[in-house]
């Protein structure tokens, strides 16, 4: 198998948060982990103590006492087994489910600056920017330091939108409009992935979140809202014909042309992306070509059939697709 993307820039480490929601969760984890190791150490210590004292009767009680050291043991069991853990879980409950949950739960609509719709498909993510025509797939852009109201829905089965470094995950349930706050305090690329098992290619359903400076983001959005670039060279025009007359247009949309398919991703600005097929391969001419003729090799079971094209048809098609900046 040819080399597939190496994480493609972003990482998805829950312990490298870049928003206060993710940061709160990470800090909570560090505290819980410390306490947990304490507890594990305590129990292990007791077991070791028992091993050290093996072969001896307990705590100086006479040998035929059936309950050596029963009383002190009761104090340990009730104190360490009931009262102490009860206090710990109640504290954790209050911190986690009363304080932090107000940060991670769906944001109040009024408190957000913009909305992005994330639509899960088998097996890629589609992103729409309400109020604009912009549609992009697998790669979404948001402005830095902006409270984004992310609405997660699904076109087929249950998926789960998850960008660990920005916030917790949210499932896309048919018939529901689940929302989370997407916010980043740092420009950069963050990787996300579908987290709910959604079929054959669940493993290849990644996404990238490009967090850009506000001005840059506005420019990007403007460019994405525009219809597809009209082909300039003859090669590209032939490619367009291949696309429109071939099988492609039945599944894919290119705004500004007659291609209106909705099975596969929107390709209007394909060339402006860095990756293909849910972060399976980089968006380079070679990969794109091989993907078109043999996508089942990279992503077995995906919805796109292997397309049979002659050599120059393929070259023309690639030239056209490469021109869709």
């Amino acid at each position, binding site marked *: 198998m040819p080399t597939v993307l190496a994480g493609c820039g972003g*990482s998805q480490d829950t312990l490298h948060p870049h928003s206060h929601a993710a940061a709160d969760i990470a800090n909570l984890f560090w505290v819980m982990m410390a306490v947990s190791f304490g507890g594990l150490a305590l129990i292990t210590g007791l077991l070791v103590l028992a*091993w050290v004292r093996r072969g001896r009767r307990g705590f100086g009680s006479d040998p035929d006492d059936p309950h050596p050291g029963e009383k002190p043991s009761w104090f*340990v*069991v009730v104190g360490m087994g009931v009262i102490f853990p009860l206090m710990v879980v109640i504290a954790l409950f209050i911190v986690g489910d009363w304080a932090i949950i107000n940060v991670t739960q769906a944001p109040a609509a009024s408190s957000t600056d913009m909305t992005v719709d994330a639509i899960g498909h088998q097996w890629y993510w589609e992103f729409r920017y309400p109020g604009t025509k912009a549609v992009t797939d697998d790669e979404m852009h948001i402005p830095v330091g902006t409270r984004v109201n992310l609405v997660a829905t699904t076109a087929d089965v249950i998926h789960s939108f998850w960008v660990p470094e920005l916030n917790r995950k949210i499932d896309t349930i048919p018939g529901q409009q689940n929302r989370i706050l997407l916010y980043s305090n740092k420009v950069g690329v963050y990787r996300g992935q579908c987290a709910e098992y959604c079929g054959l290619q669940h493993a290849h359903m990644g996404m990238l979140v490009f967090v850009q400076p506000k001005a840059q983001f506005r420019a990007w959005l403007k460019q994405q809202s525009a219809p597809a670039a009209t082909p300039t060279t003859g090669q590209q025009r032939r490619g367009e014909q291949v696309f429109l007359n071939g099988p492609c247009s039945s599944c894919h949309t290119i705004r500004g042309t007659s291609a209106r398919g909705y099975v596969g991703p929107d390709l209007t600005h394909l060339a402006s992306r860095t990756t293909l097929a849910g972060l399976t391969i980089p968006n380079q001419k070679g990969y794109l070509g091989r993907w078109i003729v043999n996508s089942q090799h990279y992503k077995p079971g995906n919805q796109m059939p292997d397309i049979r094209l002659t050599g120059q048809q393929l070259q023309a098609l690639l030239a056209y697709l490469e021109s869709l900046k």
Partner: protein
Amino acid sequence: MATTVPPPAPAEEVLDRLERMWQSRPGVLGWVMTTDHKRIGLLYFWTTLVLFAAGGAEALIIRTQLIQPNQHVVGPATYDELFTMHGLTMIFFFIIPMTTGAFGNYLLPLMLGARDMAFPRMNALSYWVFLASGIFIYVSLFIGQAPNAGWFDYVPLASAKYDPGHAIDFYCLGIIFNGISSSLTSANFIVTILKMRAPGMSFNRMPLFCFAFLAASWGLLFALPSLTADTIFLFLDRNVGTHFFDVARGGSTLLWQHLFWIFGHPEVYILIVPAFGIATEIIPAFTQRRVVAFPLVAVAELLVVFIGFGVWAHHMFATGMPTVTVVFFAAATAVVVIPSTIQVFAWCMTFITGNARFKTPLLFIAGFIFMFVAGGLTGIMFLAVPFDQQVTDTYFVIAHFHYIIFGAAVFPIFGGMYFWFPKVTGKLYFELPGQISFWIIFIGTNLLFFPMHIVGLEGMPRRNYTYPSGLGWGPENLAESIGSYITTLGIVVLLVNLLVSYFRGAPAGPDPWHGATLEWTIPSPPPDYNFAVIPKVSSAYANWDYADREEDRRKLAAGIMVLEQGHEQPVSSPVDGWWSEIVEMPHDSPWPILLALAMGLVFVLLLVHVWLGALFALGVVALTLLGWHGEEPQVREA
């Protein structure tokens, strides 16, 4: 510490009578028609062991596939079937039948001082139904139609639209079929524990093992119907065109998840509570000390299952339920921790205040406590909803529940295998290989499961048939795979050790460990009638009440409490164990296996949509039941 007096020469002719009356037919027919709980327990044991091997093989293929990024040992389709079957097998066809089926069947009557289960023929029926359901579900694998939507099988992925073919139908019918077996077993156990106790064994004199199995049986009895209803809905949606889970027609996909987890969470406790029971029998035997805080441990075993019914939605925190709802279940999740902490500290204090001898079984229990605490602590973390929403569906969760299910359920099963091996076979196992097998398994499992915490926190979702390089997941996965191979090696050592011991082991005698409960008062292997004299019980650790045991021997000599006029078994009142009657128990019967076959026919015909045929097969089931009840237990002239 005094040891038990060797039994005096028994009244031979009485024992012969009992022997003749209670022994099953010789040969294969004896095993097919048997209603002897010991034979049924052994049948369960061997069957589940085979299925354990299958589930383990699936796990090994999975680990080999994930040993490094972008592997292609198996394709995604196969991988999905593998992890689905792994989950189904280990939960429904290994741990539950191994604990309740094998250990429960073999040991409960022995610990209660009974001669058989309350419903011996129903007991046989549950085994044959279990076997049939196991074959049913594994046939799917061999005809390439294995369930492939995960063991929790979420709709709409499992609906006919996204998963055509028979895969999910096999899942639905197999689960219902297996559920029938489990329900029968649990009903049988509950009645046995409540009614078949030796007269005088009041509730508070019952061994903790029995409390654990009572709790697990109640759990199964009340949890399974929810899954049954769920799978019925799914089967109807797929094959009859109903719309329970079809959002377009007013259905709800979350309904599946709710019903599934109303079963699925108690299920987790049903898996480990019998393991608690095994632990609470091994610990007293190897510390020569009664378990600390007896009432609290007993109630904790019941509470963990009871409260476990109130926490199901914590598997659904990421589905966007209202915050108030979510937090309701977080609160229950917080409190369900406490019964476990009670038991852990009770066990540890028993270790310390007792006189611990770290033989192999106790080593497994110590390892179990370590693994259980480790897995339990990560479990506590999930009560913080935001954290749960961050790591759910990642390998962090896999690590958590494998620490619980392998560490807390399977370790005691291994410990129990060693512990009761002398009782079942009459031979001693070899100690050194036993301890070696423990250390291999202990190191292997920790190497296998601990890195999953890390890789999960690094963002690796579960159920991916492969993963990209460059996200730093490689080393952990490599370690996990190596760990899986080491664990397998350890299990092989364990089984080989037991197998060799079976042929080469030294004779064990009735009571090699000076164990606490009644099964150690009788010869090993136990006679078909279990107890020559219905034992006198005046504490939860009956084998240590020497006066009572001495009295039993004198009673045998005097022919008192022998009940040899037939297939007789005393029945007592549920709480205080006042003796209420002596019942005649049924003997070998062909009907259980016939009934299981008829039921199997029903499910096969449902699978292939021969509705009328299924109806006809139901008629066959009814006729079989008629024949079953044709033979009424009456006096058998011995």
